């Protein structure tokens, strides 16, 4: 997010705090993609992800006064989303990730060369522990550095680094035999 967009969202935040609904709507629209994606990849189903996204934004509505900037808002949303998702995962023994298959079809006509590998990576992600999954998502989906991840998850920096290393090692090991695949159109 560049500075200009950040400034606009800072203004939206100030106006939303004073009760302007259109500004709040703009903030929700700006951040819903990130919150929903985190929720989806943490919890694994669209229904649960939508419910969590809704809960997070409803909580935001009651906490707007305590949020100082758009940057802080992003941090707050990621923190609340991941913490709530980790809590949910801890309460449930196992989450089935069937609906993630809908996210990207197995065979696609798009120019994306390695859908199968990406699906495999997402499946591997779903096998990680909840904190490790959150660390990986914040690193590779939200593009945060380990220090920011540690602050978001309230986790020691070394734990974040060790989660990253172990998860990446596991993924490398399990995808070693896979090459990027492209579904060629063999139809006559």
């Amino acid at each position, binding site marked *: 997010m560049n500075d200009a967009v950040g400034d606009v969202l800072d203004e939206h935040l100030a106006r939303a705090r004073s009760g302007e*609904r259109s500004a*709040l*709507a703009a903030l*929700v*629209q700006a951040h*819903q*993609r*990130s919150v*929903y*994606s985190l929720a*989806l*990849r943490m919890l694994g189903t*669209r*229904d649960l*992800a*939508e*419910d969590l*996204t*809704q809960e997070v*934004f*409803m909580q*935001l*509505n009651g906490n707007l006064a305590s949020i100082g900037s758009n940057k802080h808002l992003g941090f707050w949303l990621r923190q609340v989303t991941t913490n709530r998702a980790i809590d949910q995962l801890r309460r449930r023994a196992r989450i089935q990730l069937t609906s993630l298959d809908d*996210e990207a079809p197995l065979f696609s006509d798009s120019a*994306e060369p*390695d859908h199968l*590998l*990406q*699906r495999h*990576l*997402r499946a591997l*992600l779903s096998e990680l522990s909840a904190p490790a999954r959150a660390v*990986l*998502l914040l690193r*590779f*989906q939200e*593009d945060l550095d380990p220090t920011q991840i540690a602050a978001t998850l309230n986790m020691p920096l070394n734990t974040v680094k060790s989660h990253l290393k172990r998860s*990446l090692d596991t*993924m*490398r090991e399990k*995808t070693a035999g896979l090459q*990027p695949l492209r579904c060629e159109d063999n139809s006559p």
Partner: protein
Amino acid sequence: MSNDIESRLKAALRPVAPSTQFSEKLVAQVCAGRSMQMRPRRLAAARRPLAWWLSASLAASVLLGIGVHQHLQQQRLQQSGLEARREVLEALRMTSQKLNLAYEAVKSQSTPPADEKSGA
């Protein structure tokens, strides 16, 4: 390969947008400041603690009722026991009195008058 897996992860984990329908509903509901109508599945899950509490309260009430009933019954038994004991003691006291009277009567009849003794 090390950077390869990282770039592939970034590609695999690109943020996805929620459905337009959900997005519109979310914005509307958040701005209105009220929660969306939950799906029945989630509603059932949300009601589960309430149902648990109701069941627990009901069970606790039944147990409390049984306890109170047993306590009162025991008190009644104890009361009737005490009453019976009091009655037995009273009966014993009265029997003792009667026996004393009988003993006195027998004793007075069996003792010869003093002039009879001297005349003999």
